[in-house]
């Protein structure tokens, strides 16, 4: 844990730039998903990804509750009350979409059929470990499908805030919360930066305008590396 004085400095550094919003984080990730990918979206910021996939790109979205070919939120007068996403919000089905039961849904997930899953996280570490289901051994734990997705999808991206509301880094040398999976995260989109998880640790792909690499490092527990 960093000293409080540093945490306060972190908050003022972050306040000096304009962090990406949750919608902007989701939009950035959506634009990086290649044509033809089968993708699962977890709860939290990731569900917003469905609303930002470029219209000319065919990406097939899977939802753990048995939807393959999930579309964006419906117009208010077009709601199907039987059709919700993992966050229990109304969604749509695209032409070609299908419904399966839970064992089949997780066969897709665990069986290596998804190209990518996009999840939220409490913490991520430079070795790709991440934590998103419990903040302590006494906290009410809620794992959902995260552990199945983390081991089953070919790639895992995390969408998360870079720090806690108090300014503590969530981008860590090692996770302190109970792990969801070891070494699974491949890329991290935060409100301050886009990071790749590589053999040498976090490589910075992009930084929010107004924040320098040095300032980003100051608010990040893990050492950061510049892309070549």
């Amino acid at each position, binding site marked *: 844990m960093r000293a409080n004085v540093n945490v306060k400095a972190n908050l003022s550094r972050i306040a000096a730039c304009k962090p990406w919003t949750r919608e902007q984080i989701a939009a950035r990730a959506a634009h990086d998903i290649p044509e033809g990918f089968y993708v699962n979206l977890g709860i939290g910021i990731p569900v917003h990804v469905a609303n930002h996939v470029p219209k000319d790109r065919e990406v097939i979205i899977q939802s753990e509750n048995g939807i393959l070919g999930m579309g964006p939120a419906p117009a208010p007068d077009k709601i199907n009350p039987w059709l919700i996403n993992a966050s229990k919000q109304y969604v749509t089905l695209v032409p070609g979409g299908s419904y399966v039961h*839970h064992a089949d849904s997780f066969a897709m997930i665990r069986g290596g059929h998804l190209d990518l899953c996009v999840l939220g996280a409490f913490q991520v570490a430079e070795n790709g470990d991440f934590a998103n289901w419990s903040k302590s051994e006494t906290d009410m734990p809620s794992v959902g499908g995260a552990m199945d997705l983390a*081991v089953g999808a070919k790639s895992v991206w995390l969408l998360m805030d870079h720090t806690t509301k108090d300014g503590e880094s969530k981008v860590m040398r090692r996770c302190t919360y109970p792990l969801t999976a070891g070494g699974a995260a491949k890329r991290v989109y935060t409100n301050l930066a886009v990071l790749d998880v590589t053999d040498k640790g976090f490589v910075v792909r992009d930084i929010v305008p107004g924040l320098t690499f040095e300032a980003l490092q100051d608010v990040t527990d893990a050492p950061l590396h510049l892309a070549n």
Partner: protein
Amino acid sequence: MINKIVQSMAEALADVRDGAVILVGGFGSIGQPNALIYGLIEQGAKDLTVVANNAGVGHVGLARLMEVGRVRKIVCSYPRTSDPVVFEELYRDGKIELEVMPQGTMAERMRAAGAGIPAFYTPTSVGTLLAAGKEQREFGGRKYVLEQAFHGDVALIEAWEADRWGNLTYRSSARNFNPVMAMAAKLTIAQAQHIVELGGIDPEHVVTPGIYVDRVVHVPYGEPTVT
């Protein structure tokens, strides 16, 4: 003549015993058989172990069953859903036991139970607290955790259409855990929005064949609300 359609909730829930393991379909409130849950409250069985993806919302359905003190233990993947007020209070006061398992492991353990597979290895949860104390084995250089089949005494299912043999269809994402749970219990009870004639469901569209279903009760309640 086989006729699994029963005329009353009391008949549907007859002989559900105290201490039973009850599998409850649904993902949040969608596909959750609330009429059967209220019927179970009326029926009075207590000391239940309930298996459901979430731990109830607000004060309705599953939350109500917990609120009236019938549930000893809940097995679920995601209790921290929106507004789990009843569960949170019971959990905080130590009045309910919680077992959390990964959602896919939960589904597959019930599928295995229904398919006669006593146990299986899964990569899910390796290296985490949820694998603690479980046998591990390596296949092809990768670690896996041994998980056992999970049987229910009773499954409560929400279906869209049903016929007198117990063939079922589901509506959109309300399918979720229902077909898996229907396979995994000794006694499977379905509530259905529509009762159709035998042969009224296209055989290509039957999702749960009647062999898995014991009783069907007609509950044309209309549209669910996300609560």
